[in-house]
């Protein structure tokens, strides 16, 4: 099947390195030869290679993929990128503004920040911080700091940057601190880990539900199909947020962070599988009429062999695309629920939990850096959308 599809698409795909050579070679003969070569490469290319070549042309999708890779690196090595314990609070340094980094010290590259001195404004009684220009706090790259376990089992204490030997009060606050004096940068790193993985775990659950139910619906058809389709229609016509809120509020208060994490993923995916099921069903129905499925049936293949050996490989790319496009919606759901205080709860840290601090507009006007996590949400969602669009276009240029 893949070869058949490839021949049809030969005019649409430029294998890497060949299209460029064509411009330089002026002689028609050489041109002809190169094109032949290109066609040969396309004819023998696998479906995945063809997809990859098409995907590469989609600049936004490639950009989105790189951004996501960076996000997941942050998520995996959150402890390394953070430089202090994200839940270490200190009322003495609440709502500090982000510190300005001075990159050069007396002509040489020696980044440092000034220590901040907290005082009270005699007029408004607000806590204000003034840089103490006499105390320079040097920033060390790959310095030692808070001990942690890399990947959960390798003991380490090196961080991307650290302030060695500094007192807690004169530490580094790249993105300022929150109301309880916790370092916003370190919290953002750990929140990225939670929010980016919750998308993956939840989408995996939705995927299982969606593929099984959508597959049954599309492959068997008939009464089962209409029952499943009605269920999907019903679920899609219910406003999800109130429903999620109701279910999430029922999560007992004494559950641990991990239990709540999984409860929320389950709640989100229980309603989120419908779109995936729709895609899978549509693919099954269109593939069922293909000749190669008929051929497999005539040869006497078992049902499961037809499904998993013959049908699934030809639409797996579509499922990957639909899955990628489902993740941003899940991330937004988790963020919204946690923002309301019904999703993940402190001491868990996620983007939504961080944004809870930004709920109060007056506080936000005084300390706008509390809104920084929202950029992470927007960028991650955009990147997922771009990447998903790219995969979808690459998987099926006719869609």
């Amino acid at each position, binding site marked *: 099947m893949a070869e058949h599809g490839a021949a049809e698409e030969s005019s649409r795909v430029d294998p890497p390195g060949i299209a460029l050579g064509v411009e330089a070679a002026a002689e028609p003969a050489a041109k002809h030869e190169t094109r032949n070569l290109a066609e040969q490469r396309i004819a023998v290319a696998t479906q995945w290679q063809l997809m990859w070549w098409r995907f590469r042309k989609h600049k936004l999708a490639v950009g989105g993929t790189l951004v996501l890779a960076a996000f997941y690196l942050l998520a995996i090595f959150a402890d390394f990128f953070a430089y202090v314990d994200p839940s270490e609070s200190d009322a003495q340094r609440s709502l500090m503004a982000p510190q300005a980094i001075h990159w050069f010290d007396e002509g040489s590259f020696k980044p440092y920040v000034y220590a901040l001195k907290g005082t009270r404004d005699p007029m408004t009684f607000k806590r204000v911080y003034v840089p103490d220009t006499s105390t320079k706090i040097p920033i060390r790259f790959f310095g030692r700091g808070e001990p942690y376990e890399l990947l959960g089992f390798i003991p380490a204490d090196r961080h991307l940057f650290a302030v060695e030997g500094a007192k807690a009060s004169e530490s580094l606050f790249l993105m300022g601190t929150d109301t309880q004096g916790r370092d916003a940068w370190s919290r953002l790193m750990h929140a990225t880990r939670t929010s980016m993985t919750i998308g993956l775990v939840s989408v995996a659950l939705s995927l299982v539900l969606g593929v099984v139910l959508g597959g049954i619906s599309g492959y068997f058809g008939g009464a089962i199909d209409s029952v499943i389709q*009605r269920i999907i*229609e*019903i679920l*899609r*016509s*219910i*406003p*999800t*947020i*109130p*429903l999620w*809120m*109701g*279910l999430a*509020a*029922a999560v*007992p208060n004494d559950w641990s962070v991990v239990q709540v994490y999984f409860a929320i993923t389950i709640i989100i995916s229980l309603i989120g599988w419908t779109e995936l099921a729709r895609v899978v069903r549509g693919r099954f129905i269109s593939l069922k009429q293909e000749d190669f499925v008929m051929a497999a049936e005539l040869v006497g293949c078992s049902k499961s062999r037809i499904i998993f050996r013959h049908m699934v490989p030809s639409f797996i790319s579509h499922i990957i695309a639909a899955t990628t496009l489902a993740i*941003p919606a899940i991330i*937004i759901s988790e*963020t*919204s629920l946690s*923002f*309301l*205080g*019904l999703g993940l709860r402190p001491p868990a840290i996620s983007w939504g939990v961080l*944004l809870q601090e*930004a*709920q109060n*507009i*007056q506080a*936000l*006007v005084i300390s*706008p850096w509390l*809104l920084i996590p*929202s950029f992470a*949400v*927007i960028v991650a*969602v*955009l990147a997922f*959308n*771009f990447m998903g669009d790219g995969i979808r276009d690459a998987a099926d240029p006719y869609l």
Partner: protein
Amino acid sequence: MLAYIVRRLLLAVLTVWAISVLSFIIIHLPPGDYVTSYIASMSASGSAVSEGEAKALREQLGLDKPITVQYLKWTGLMLQGNFGMAMEWGRPVSDVIGDRLTLTMVISVAAIVFTWALALPIGIFSAVYRYSFMDYVFTLVGFIGLAIPGFLLALIVMYVGFAYFDANVGGLFSPDLVEAPWNMAKVWDLTKHLPIPAIVLGVAGTAQLIRIMRSNLLDELRKPYVMTARARGLSEYWVVMRYPVRVALNPFVSTIGYLLPYIVSGSIIVSLVLSLPTVGPLLLKALIAQDMFLAGTIVLLLGVLTVIGTFISDLLLMWIDPRIRRGRQ
């Protein structure tokens, strides 16, 4: 045509039933029941409830019966319009919800009107002038609009209003009219306050609809009948507006079915940030106070109203699409 209406109506009834079961589950999910939370709230205010009183209260409310009986009793009461008492408020649920539910729907409809009013012309423009500079601009803005969750957009709007214009853009009424009875002045005040929540709610849906409209219209514009119309000397405006737009409009109406639940859903959380007097803040409060009767009722009524809205959009679709009217799908 009749078959279509009956089928849609049946599905609507089925959906309402499913919503009622889900709301009932929400009411019963947390450990303990109405009486336990009643006792808790009473002891918090200093007065104790004895074992006997608790038992009597349970019997009176039918909480000692099996769950199915309770469900039937609950739906029976619902059908009579008796939604029970809101504990925290000490008033019937219908009293507490009343106006807020209406306002939720007003805001949702306003958001849909806004979505349409913007998505239609932009969608047409983007399809007709494909790959033009403005098309790219709209695509980019649309992508960003899709990526910003409603509550974040609301936060940003509030922040900008507060920090740069020194104005509170939240709320639905001017402070002096909040408690006033309904009259023309109040309605006018409401219309003046509606645009901001409507825009905040509508942005994501608008972005989606623009993309749908654009791709639908592009498909139509490639068809031979468009060329025929052009060949016959129809002006470019009429070539586009007379037929292709009308055909492309069809999925536009049919998406209300998905758009409405989405917007109602979003209105809950946006209301909280913009402090709108909808059921959103009420629902959150009820859930935090574990006033599950109030919460369950809100989820149920929101769901039912959404189903009604979807049903109306189905009828609308039938009206604009002769294929459905004449019984062909």
